[in-house]
């Protein structure tokens, strides 16, 4: 004990520093391993999409690198010779509509549920969260019947109808959380300043909860962009198809898989969410974690 105390100031300082450096080194080492695991598929997709068909088919060469020169031929083929742009346009239309509907519906509802009371509003708030937990794979069969009944089968407008089931509950849920975190005094100040319900929502709540609005919008956007179950079940002709299903199923035409072009298609289709993510990462993450920490 006495020896340790006597020795501590010098040796302790040095070993603390060494320990910390060692911990940092192992952290980096393992993080690099995980990063390789996480980034391998996108890397390989990019590499493949930049190769010529001949190099993709060549079995002996190293598939992980581009040996015979970078070519944009696959992208040219994708845009010129396939229906990819139609899928893209359809997806844009569907996503825009769904995001708009989602945000209007969920912001109005969240405002009402976070600040006003009416009969059943407490149950409704809980119910919304529960409905978010009902997955699309449980609903797509009855919805198929309903969509068919409405005559919307094989029309991308059916996507505008059914995608809100994926987005509205969660967006409402996180908006309730964001709105509840606005101090009550702020409404009271606005009330005294003379604001009505709509002015309160538009001039106070939405601007103050803007990070939440952005997070919810990003969520609605990525979900409608990536949806797969509903379109694969409800859409079958190329002119109505959306990107996910179109890329995965319709681009595969002949017996020979055009892997280079498929990868190009997948990458272009994945680009919009990735771009949004690159620019709004913090909002994206806030939206992701909001479900469990708010409300």
């Amino acid at each position, binding site marked *: 004990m006495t020896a340790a105390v006597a020795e501590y100031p010098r040796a302790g300082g040095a070993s603390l520093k060494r320990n910390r450096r060692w911990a940092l080194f192992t952290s980096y080492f393992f993080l690099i391993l995980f990063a390789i695991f996480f980034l391998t598929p996108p890397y390989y997709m990019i590499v493949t999409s930049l190769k010529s068909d001949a190099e993709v088919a060549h079995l002996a060469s190293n598939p992980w690198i581009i040996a015979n020169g970078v070519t944009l031929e696959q992208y040219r083929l994708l845009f010129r010779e396939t229906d990819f742009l139609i899928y893209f346009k359809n997806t844009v239309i569907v996503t825009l509509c769904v995001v708009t509907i989602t945000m209007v519906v969920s912001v109005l509802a969240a405002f009402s549920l976070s600040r006003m009371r009416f009969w059943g509003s407490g149950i409704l708030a809980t119910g919304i969260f529960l409905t978010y937990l009902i997955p699309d794979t449980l609903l797509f069969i009855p919805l198929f019947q309903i969509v068919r009944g409405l005559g919307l089968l094989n029309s991308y407008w059916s996507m505008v109808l059914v995608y809100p089931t994926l987005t509205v509950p969660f967006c409402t849920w996180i908006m309730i959380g964001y709105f509840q975190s606005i*101090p009550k*005094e*702020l409404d*009271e*100040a*606005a*009330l*005294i*300043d*003379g*604001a009505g319900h709509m*002015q309160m929502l538009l*001039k*106070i709540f939405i*601007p*103050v909860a*803007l990070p939440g609005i952005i997070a919810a919008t990003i969520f609605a956007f990525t979900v409608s962009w990536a949806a797969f179950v509903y379109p694969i079940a409800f859409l079958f002709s190329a002119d109505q198809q959306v990107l996910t299903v179109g890329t995965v199923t319709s681009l595969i035409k002949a017996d020979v898989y055009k892997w280079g072009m498929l990868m190009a298609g997948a990458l272009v289709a994945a680009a919009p969410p990735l771009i949004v993510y690159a620019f709004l990462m913090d909002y994206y993450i806030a939206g992701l974690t909001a479900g469990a920490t708010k409300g």
Partner: protein
Amino acid sequence: MADVALRDVVKRFDEVEAVRNISLNIPDSEFVVLVGPSGCGKSTTLRMIAGLEEVTEGEILIGGNVVNDVPPKDRDIAMVFQNYALYPHMTVFENMSFGLRLRRTPKAEIRARVEQAAKILDITELLDRRPKQLSGGQRQRVAMGRAIVRNPKVFLFDEPLSNLDAKLRVQMRTEIKRVHQKVKTTTVYVTHDQVEAMTLADRVVVMNGGRIEQIGRPHDLYHRPKTHFVAGFIGSPAMNFLPARLQPNGEALMLRLSPELAFPVPPAHAARYRPSVGKDLIFGLRPEHITEPRGEERDPRYEFSMTVDVIEPMGMETMVFFTVHGKEVCARVEPTAAKPPGQPIRLYANLNHMHLIDPATESVL
């Protein structure tokens, strides 16, 4: 400008009575402070005047009109909140002008009024900043500016200084007083801090348990409290309370505090206290009236010796704590007269300022 009146106002939240039958008249341009411990109903009262809470029973009048059913925006009031409630996404200018813009006041007039209010509060350079970029004191000024700009009939303040540090609080207190002297708007101010209440108010309303304990000028509350609660609440450090009994001593009265300690009641008080002889009473005396023996014409009968428990030097004076019959008592002595803990000290009780409280009615005799 307007007077405010509360008539038999009651507020119930479900079964809980937060405010129990309050009546209060506030004449035009008076500065009234509602003070009391948390949960005494002072904030609820203020919020009812603002229209943020419904009145369960009774009436509230502003400018002679019953406003029970008038929504807040039409009551022509302005309110300053404890956490300022500034709109975080608006600049100071936008914050201050929000109410006017909602009322569609002409742009030029808005600008003129905001600038004038900014000048009064000395925040002209801050008009383009956002609340986040302001210090606590500056936010407080902006919150007041937002109220002044509206030029309302009544200002309502809900503990506006409790989020500030001690130094700033004193500074802003002066500021509020200065503004009130300038604009002379009827003001209702809520605080739990009795010093704030004493320094700011024309009249103080002491509340406790949803009732008004006493209404009066600061000086009156301090020197002539009507109830046990007011006597203990107003003044810092608080008044000393000791159980006591009055004993007849011929013509005079003796005040017995413990088997060892008794003082003659000053003749000026004797007549008033005579009916209470023999009852269990509470004796109250402020710390500043227990000092070291000082001055020329002191009466040796009021001198006594005690053992010091704890001392708290404050600079100008020193608080000396000792125990009488198991109760802690505080005296306020010159720093030079203070003795270290454990040592005896000679003290003098100035009973001309004494209070006697009947514990049965809680009222001051």
